């Protein structure tokens, strides 16, 4: 008689544990959202990827359509080669534009795809040629300061 109550408790305990792991996977983790299904792989070369990391989302019009699979340095072109895994359901034209954006001011970086007008679509293993690098804050600030300085110079000249 006592054994059955213990069995009941242990069954309850194990069920609770399974529920906790399921809850972690579905509610806390990204098991549902990372489930993209069948994918195809394209590459894109960037001169500067900023803080892009593997597994970062690939978005088009703000919707996640893939993930960054890998990043490596190409010693021939001195570019970063980023491999993107895209959902098979979405086909993109060959002249699609790939940008590296930042979510929010300090958020994580992601790859944004903007469809072009070509009639031929990207295939497995193709390379996206139109790319735009990540915005590097230091570069922007130095450019801004440089422009300001040259503006001042021309103002001074005009005053003279």
């Amino acid at each position, binding site marked *: 008689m006592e054994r059955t109550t213990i069995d009941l408790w242990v069954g309850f305990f194990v069920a609770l*544990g399974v529920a*906790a792991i399921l809850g972690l996977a579905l509610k806390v983790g*990204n098991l549902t959202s990372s489930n993209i299904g069948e994918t195809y792989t394209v590459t894109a070369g960037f001169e500067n990827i900023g803080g892009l990391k593997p597994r970062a989302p690939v978005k088009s019009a703000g919707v996640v359509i893939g993930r960054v699979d890998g990043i490596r340095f190409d010693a021939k072109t001195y570019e970063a080669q980023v491999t993107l895994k895209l959902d098979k359901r979405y086909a993109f034209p060959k002249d699609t534009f790939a940008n590296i954006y930042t979510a929010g001011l300090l958020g994580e970086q992601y790859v944004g795809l903007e469809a072009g007008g070509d009639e031929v679509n990207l295939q497995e293993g193709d390379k996206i040629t139109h790319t735009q690098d990540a915005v590097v804050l230091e570069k922007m600030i130095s450019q801004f300061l440089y422009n300001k300085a040259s503006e001042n110079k021309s103002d001074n000249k005009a005053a003279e």
Partner: protein
Amino acid sequence: MFSSLKSTIAKIGHNFIEGIWHLGAGGRLFFYILVYLGDSVRRPSLIVREIYATGVLSLLIILVSAFFVGMVLGLQGYNTLQKYGSSEAIGVLVALSLVRELGPVVTALLFAGRAGTAITAEIGLMRATEQLSAMEMMAVSPVGRVLAPRFLAGVISMPILAALFSMIGVLGGYFVAVPLIGVDSGAFWSQMQASVDFREDIVNGVIKSVVFGIVCTMIALFEGYDAPPTAEGVSRATTRTVVYSSLAVLGLDFILTAFMIKV
């Protein structure tokens, strides 16, 4: 003066050799338990009873502390994050710190205190009252009948408890962040889901808790089995269980984390 120095050095050497001896004996016991594991699997009622003793009876302390740990994480995290205007990231902070570190580690520490000490005291007393010798006399292996089921039960209970700890902790963080402080509920969950990875974070946490389960249960079993058959011996063995388990868990946690995090 010279003789006291000599005796000090001798003591250090003795303690060192004693430590190595314990390690070897523990390893041998671990091997025996693995050998007898098959036998105990064939008697599930024994394992079920031990899971009740180690797992179910630890539920209360694990769940209550998990809820409070989650709430404290929520409060502390909010306090710092709102300075940077990103209080929505509180879900990420609570979930990642629980799933990766606090879940497995704090559960293992509580487990060593709640279940490990019980195992050590029980087996130590069994030895002191010569129940283990009686079993051997009847050609029943105490390792197969007493130790192996407890080992298996500990290894099964630990990941379940750790997963529960993480889940309840996240709920505790949610309780503080959303109803009490007023962080947006959608942002809390969606940011969490965006940065907690199933393979990298949750599965690694479960792996950690399995390792901690093996280590904590093994230390508790060995200390009980090895305890001198006196009241003082059993009490000292119980203390050693908590101390060694805690040290082993914290040290191993660093090593496991170093393996898991790719820099």
